[in-house]
Structure formats: structure tokens, C-alpha cells
């Protein structure tokens, strides 16, 4: 404690000096070298020097403070004091190794460190002669839109101040092209003759995935009123009977999705209409057009769950899977999803533990130093992910053999979302419910790599946010295949147990 005061007091004095201090002090502490003396996090200086704000046509260089502090007269000095104190604190009391720099660089967090006024201070006109057609549309949107905190220049220009390898906010025609021909190409889908877990093979690709047989049964959907972090839309609890089905043991991976993309994708923006690629063959499926930007966020693909795809794209993927495998694949209903996630449990998670103990932020959490071993074993979430998706190997499955139901990425369901879905069902219980007949947004279930423990509960509900997730897509019309602003949602597939998967006629 003594050490604390010895060091903290000079910090306060330094702060006061900044307030009262001369222009000299202010300008000295605003020099790039001064900033760099503390900001030693990986690549801060290098990536700045590689960015378009350093390598410019005119040779002008934009200094750290020009982007990271508001312009003079617009709150420059107060911000300088505030960030200065915070930085001194961080420098002396925190271990830079412990910072999750990747998370701090993510758009939502980066916005906090780049006041938008700094962008507009220099970039007075948004409509420069060199602007592309898409840039014009995007800037027109910006110009007319209501100014909210999440509408920020760096939504589209994230790499403006610090170079990000592979970052693109533009048409990405070559996305998903296979670099080398895979060794195995499956030519037959799996043959399923009995109600057992099986491995599906996607014909014409090297992708396969595991499907778990989930026995039918009854469970209570929703959460009791006293469950921590419960939202109103999780009740009233309702008794649900579920018929047997198969569900993916893991979330649909990039490899699986790219098999679909490669076989069905349109050849450019002009083909972004249903059926244009399929020609006269009514059975063929017209798939996604190339993305705008980098849908995998440069986190890698392979076995990582597919992200940035729209609900429509996920449904089309299932439709295509039906065609190439001859089995009835689809998105899970919300009830199937929760049944599969709970795997017979009635507690907040399918593993032991209190959501409040797993919540990581807040003073209480710091004091309690809770044991998070359990949750770390089963879930990729904010507490253990380096701010991005992980491969399924990172966690253990639930009792049904399913991985990452609560985390890694949130998952699309087939139901329309309503906050009063459960009160719509009869009190006596319901069989295989599929949600309201219509709605505006679809249900998503499960938390993601960026969620805290409360959102990972088996009963937690959420929904798509179409407008928000397409915000920085400057294309007209916006893509119906790729969300420009949603990197935390994916999906898993359900396969129906029917005559195509071994169900006999006389079987109930």
C-alpha cells in the first residue's frame, strides 16, 4: 500500500502539472516518441508507420495524438489529462502481458480510443473527387444517418491509423478460393440406416462433420424467475416434448461452408438475385455472392465456426445440404436447441456452477477470485477467448456430445423471435414447438466468444439485428448473404430423423 502512494502521488502531481503546465509540457508529452515510450504493445508503432496515415502521398504524417485525442478546443486538454492519468496507472501498475491487445483493437473497443472529431477535424469534406461509387453511397449514408456513438468513421476505415494485414473493406472476389486441391474428395454422402450418431460427408468436397443422435424426450424450456441474469423473455417456463433428431456435434465450420460457397456461389454482385446462377434447372441452388470485406476477420478458417453469414445464407446452406446429401437438414428450432444444450440438465448450465460466480467483471468478481475451471473446460467465452472464435478442440462436449452450445459463436435458430414466445404456448405443454408464425428478426441462441457468463446460460435468448449487422455494407442493395458487422454468430445444423435417416414406417 505504501508503494502505491509513493507512486500514485507523483502521478497526481504530473496530472496537475499537465493542467497548469506550459504549452511546452503539453507539446513534449504529445510527441510520438513520448507516446511510444509507454505504448509498447505489439506493433503499435510499426503498424502506425505502415498505415495510410504515415505513408501518405504528400509526405504528411499524422501523429498519435492527432487521432487519439480530440482536437484542441474540442476537449483536448481534459482528454489528455484523463488518458494521461490512465496511462501512468497502466504503465506502473499493470503488466502489459496481461492486456488482451487483440480485444482492445476490436472495432467496438477501438472506437473508444479514436474520438471521431479527430477524423472530421482534418477530413472536412466526405465527398472527395477520388471517392468510389461505393464510397459515395457509404458517405451519403453517413451524412444522412442519425449520429449515434456506434456510427464511426473507423467502422469502415479500421486500418486507417494502424495497418492490419489482410484487412479489407471492399469487394472480396477471391474470398474462399481453395489454394490447393484437397487430397480426399467425397463422392457419396453418409448412409444412415439407424438412429445412431453418424459422420456426414459432403459430396464433391473434402468436408465432413459429426452428427449426434438426440433421443426424444420432455424438458422444461426457459428459466426459473430466480435464475441469475435471467431476462423476462425466458419465461414463463413451458413443458416441451421433443421428437428424436440429429444435430451437429459442433458449429458449422468454414471448411463445410466453403464447400457450399464453392459449389453454388454467384460470380459477382450482379448475380445477387435468387436463381440467377441456377439457370433453367429449378433444383439447383443459387448461393452466396462474394463478400464485401473479410468475413473471417482474418482469424483463420478451417475448423473455426463460420461467421459473418446471414440467417438467409445459413438457411440456404441447409437447403443445399438437403440437395447434396438427400437428408432433411435444417436449422434447429429454438426448442430443439435448448433441449440439446441442456442435455437433461435443469441448471443454468449443463455443467455445475452459478452464473454469478463465473461473471468476470465487477468488483465482486475481483474480490471473490472465483474458480472458473469448469466453465473454461466447456465454453469458449469472453473469459478465455483471445477475442475471437476458437476451434472445437478447445472445449469438452456436453452429455449429448455437443461442443460449444453455450459459447464460441451464438447460433441461428429457425424460429421468429418474440419476447413473449413462451406465453403463447399452452400451459399444459407443447410438442415440437416452432415459435411465432411471423416476425421481424430470427432467434439466436447461446453466447459467443465475446459474451460474459450470464449470456451463456442454456435458457438465454437473443435475436438477429439485421439493420445493425449490415450497417457498414455500402453496397446497394446490401448483401443478403454476408453481415458486414456481425462476427459472433454462426449456426449448427439439425437433420430430421425420418425415412431418409433410417426411420421405419411402423416406428412412432
Amino acid at each position: 500500500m505504501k508503494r502505491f502512494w509513493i507512486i500514485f502521488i507523483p502521478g497526481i502531481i504530473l496530472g496537475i502539472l499537465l493542467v497548469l503546465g506550459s504549452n511546452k509540457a503539453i507539446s513534449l508529452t504529445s510527441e510520438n516518441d513520448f507516446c511510444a515510450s509507454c505504448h509498447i504493445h505489439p506493433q503499435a508503432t510499426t503498424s502506425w508507420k505502415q498505415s495510410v496515415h504515415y505513408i501518405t502521398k504528400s509526405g504528411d504524417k499524422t501523429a498519435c495524438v492527432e487521432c487519439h485525442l480530440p482536437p484542441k478546443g474540442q476537449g483536448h486538454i481534459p482528454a489528455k489529462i484523463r488518458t494521461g492519468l490512465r496511462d501512468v496507472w497502466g504503465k506502473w501498475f499493470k503488466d502489459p502481458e496481461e492486456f488482451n491487445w487483440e480485444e482492445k483493437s476490436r472495432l467496438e473497443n477501438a472506437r473508444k480510443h479514436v474520438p471521431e472529431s479527430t477524423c472530421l477535424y482534418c477530413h472536412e469534406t466526405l465527398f472527395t473527387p477520388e471517392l468510389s461509387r461505393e464510397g459515395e453511397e457509404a458517405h451519403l449514408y453517413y451524412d444522412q444517418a442519425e449520429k449515434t456513438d456506434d456510427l464511426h468513421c473507423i467502422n469502415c476505415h479500421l486500418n486507417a491509423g494502424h495497418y492490419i494485414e489482410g484487412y479489407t473493406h471492399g469487394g472480396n472476389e477471391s474470398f474462399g478460393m481453395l489454394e490447393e486441391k484437397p487430397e480426399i474428395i467425397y463422392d457419396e454422402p453418409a448412409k444412415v440406416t439407424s438412429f445412431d450418431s453418424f459422420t456426414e460427408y459432403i459430396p464433391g468436397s473434402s468436408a465432413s462433420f459429426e452428427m449426434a443422435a438426440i433421443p426424444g424426450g420432455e424438458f422444461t424450456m426457459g428459466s426459473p424467475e430466480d435464475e441469475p441474469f435471467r431476462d423476462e423473455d425466458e419465461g414463463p417456463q413451458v413443458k416441451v416434448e421433443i421428437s428424436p433428431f440429429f444435430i451437429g456435434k459442433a458449429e458449422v465450420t468454414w471448411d463445410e461452408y466453403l464447400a457450399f460457397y464453392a459449389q453454388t456461389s454467384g460470380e459477382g454482385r450482379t448475380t445477387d438475385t435468387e436463381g440467377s446462377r441456377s439457370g433453367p434447372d429449378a433444383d439447383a441452388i443459387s448461393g452466396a455472392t462474394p463478400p464485401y470485406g473479410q468475413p473471417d476477420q482474418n482469424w483463420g478458417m478451417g475448423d473455426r465456426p463460420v461467421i459473418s453469414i446471414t440467417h438467409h445464407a445459413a438457411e440456404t446452406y441447409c437447403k443445399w445440404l438437403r440437395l447434396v446429401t438427400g437428408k432433411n437438414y435444417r436449422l434447429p428450432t429454438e426448442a430443439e436447441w435448448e433441449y440439446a444444450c441442456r442435455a437433461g440438465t435443469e441448471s443454468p448450465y449443463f455443467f455445475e456452477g452459478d452464473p454469478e460466480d463465473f461473471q468476470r467483471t465487477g468488483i465482486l468478481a475481483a474480490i471473490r477470485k472465483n474458480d472458473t475451471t469448469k466453465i473454461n473446460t466447456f465454453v469458449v467465452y469472453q473469459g478465455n477467448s483471445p477475442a475471437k472464435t476458437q476451434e472445437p478442440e478447445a472445449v469438452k462436449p456436453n452429455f449429448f456430445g455437443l461442443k460449444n452450445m453455450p459459447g464460441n459463436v451464438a447460433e441461428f435458430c429457425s424460429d421468429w423471435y418474440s419476447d413473449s414466445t413462451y406465453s403463447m404456448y399452452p400451459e399444459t405443454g407443447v410438442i415440437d414447438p416452432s415459435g411465432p408464425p411471423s416476425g421481424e428478426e430470427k432467434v439466436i441462441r447461446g453466447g459467443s466468444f465475446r459474451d460474459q457468463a450470464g449470456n451463456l446460460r442454456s435458457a438465454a435468448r437473443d435475436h438477429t439485428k439485421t439493420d445493425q449487422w449490415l450497417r457498414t455494407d455500402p453496397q446497394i442493395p446490401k448483401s443478403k448473404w454476408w453481415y458486414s458487422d456481425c462476427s459472433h454468430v454462426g449456426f449448427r445444423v439439425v437433420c430430421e430423423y425420418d425415412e431418409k435417416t433410417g426411420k421405419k414406417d411402423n416406428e412412432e
Partner: protein
Amino acid sequence: MKNNISRRNFLGKAAAAGAAGAVMPSLMNSCAPDGRMKNVIVPEFLDQAPDGPELKAGLIGCGGRGTGAAINFLSAGPNLKVTALGDVFTDRLNSCRERLKEQKDNEVADENCFIGFDAFQKVIDSGVDIVILATPPYFRPEHFAAAVEARKHIFMEKPVAVDPAGARSVMVTAKKAESMGLSVVTGTQRRHQRDYANTYAQVAAGAMGEIVSANCYWNQSKLWHRDPNADWTEMEYMIRDWVNWCWLSGDHIVEQHVHNLDVINWFTGKHPVQAVGFGSRHRRVTGDQFDNFSVDFVLDNGVHVHSMCRQIDGCENNVSEYIQGTLGSSNCQNAIVDLNGKEIWKYKYPLNDQGEETNNVKVSPYDQEHIDLVTAIRTDKPFNEAENTAISTMVGIMGRISSYTGKLVTWDEMMNSDLKLGPEVFEFGPVDIPKEIPVPGKAYKPNA
């Protein structure tokens, strides 16, 4: 998407709109009904643009309105010349050239007369200071962009586009022009008409309270048409018959009625955010357009604006606007009455030789537009109304699409629509576009 047109347009800028080149805008104090005093700038229009170094204008589109606009320009003040002409038809260019010579003693050199679909660029590049864009509106977004790219001041006729993609393009180009300090006047001449501008100032100052509803009308007899001619290709025929083809004119709800829609936008300081329209075709002779529209527009504050337009002989005619406020109403042009119909305010027109009040403003608004443009350029006070007119054009397009489809159409849909009318190729030959007349309830709704 919320729009900031209200903030941007109300009072300040919009009032200043008419004040292009005003030497000393005077402040008028008007007592608002709630007792608060609001200051509104009354536009001070000059009768002639000030003198200055010669300004050369090039005219693109030498039809009736283009020729008229060129004459209005030449009448705006001293030292103004039209030095280049462009059109796709030699006969139109020649007759324009002759009229300029006869009426204004303005001669255009042979080498500055350009014919063809690329004539616009040649006019722009011919060393002019100002370009006058008066072709059918389909071409406006492209010509406007080229003129701004070349840093020219611009007079362009309304409407400024025929489809959502074109209207958005003009919004963007308007911004570019603004950042380059270029002046742009757009043929919505009521904003340059002294009675309208003074009425606006009264309304903005609160003389009739808050606006609660609005109506606007352009009901007139049949316009004109051309019959096909065996010597003409389809492209030539369509362009000569342009007010009857949607891809060229935007249909008359856009082509003519934009004037009235623009007045409502001006007075309310907003633009509609959605439209439900009716429309049909009863008597039209050529083309693919409707001859009547009736549209219920709604502003973001819930105020309804009813718009009507018709081009049919033998029916009741009416070209006007009407706004209802909490304390009275106005015809937007020259009078405000209270809720009992008693006159609150009336615009005072100039007196004639006998000392009687006339019906006309001192300077024709068609001349005033050019006086305001030349004044803005010569006094170095840039004035740019292109964005306002692009918004009003988009409102007309929104009403048209709703009437064609029978569906509710929103402003957001328009701002996200990739609908682009017209053929891919421009040459004198067949025109490869759908020519069906829209049927409400069945027509394709673009990008909804």
C-alpha cells in the same frame, strides 16, 4: 434512417436560399403566436446581377426549356454570353442558335456547336464558366457529375433524376460541388420567386403556427406528345417524345410535380419518409407513363401531405400548394389566412402605371434564378440548391414507385434501391427496355 434535412433546411440555409447574392439580407421580426420573436432572413433579390468579367455559359440540351434558360441567363445581367451548344439533334441546336441570335444578339461559333450523346463533355470542355443542363432529366446525374468534375458553376433544370440511383448520385455530386465552392441553381424557380420567398419567411416565423397538414397539386390539361415518324429510330423517337417516357422524364409526378413537392419540403423543412399512392392511365397517347397520380405522403413527425397531379383534358385544373397550420393556412404563394378565413398577411405586388397592384412579381422567377446564380458567382458567395432538389426529386420518385406498384414505399427503401431506368447502350437504334405500362398490385417492387 433519420434525416437531418429538417435541421439543415429550416430557417438558416433554406431562407438564405432565395437570398443568393443578397447584398444585405434584412432581418424581419415577426411575432410568433406564442409570443416568442423569431428572426427570419427575408431574401433580398436583386433586379440585375452585378457587373463583372465576362461569364461564358455552355448549353447542353437545346430544346424549348434549354433555349429559354439560355435566354434567361443572358437577361440576368451585363457581360454574359452563351458560347457553346450541345444537343443530340441538329435541328434543335440550330433553332436554338437562331433564337439566341435573334432575341439576344448572341452568336455561337460553329466550332462550339456539338452534336451527339457525347456533346455534353465537349461543351463542358469548351472553355465555359457555367453550364446549363436542360436535356431530358434521365441524363442529368451524369452531366451534373461531369460538370462538377470540371469545376463548372451550374444551372440545371428540374427534375434532377428519374430513379433512386440517379437521385443519390446527384446528392453526392451536390456535396462535391459544395466542397469545391461551386454554385448550383436547379430550376425550382418558386424558391426564387419573391412572393413565395416572402410567404415562406412569414410561415417560418410562425405566422400560421405549426404546420399540421399540406396539399399540393399539378392538375393540368394533356401535355404534348409526338407521333412516331418513319425516318426516326426508336431512340430518336423516344427522346423527341421524352415527356411521355418514364426512363427519360421520371413520369409527370417527377417531371412537373416536383415543383410543388419541393415547395412543401421547403415550407415544412422536412421531406416525406413514406408514400402510398394511386395512379393510372386513361387518355395518354404515347409512351409508358400514367396520366394521374394521387399520393398520401407522411413526414417523420406524422404530418400527412397529399399530392395530386394529372395531365388530362377537360378536367378541373389547379397548380398550387396549400399548408394548414394550427393558427391559419397559406397558399404558400402570397397569402396567409386565420382559421376563420380572415386575411392575416398578404404579399404586396408591384404597382402598375395607374398605381394599381399587379399580379406579378417584379422580376420573373425564371430570370431571377439566373440573376441569383450570376450574383453568387460574381460576389463569391457560393449558393447550391442541388441537394434540396435531389431530395424533392426522390420524393416524386417515391410517390411514382408507390403508385406504380400499389405498395407502401419508404424513404429508406429509396436510399437503398438500385433501381436504374433506361437502356444500357446509347445509340440511335432500337431501345432495349421494358415498355409495359405498370399495373398497381402486380408490378415489380424494386428492392423492397
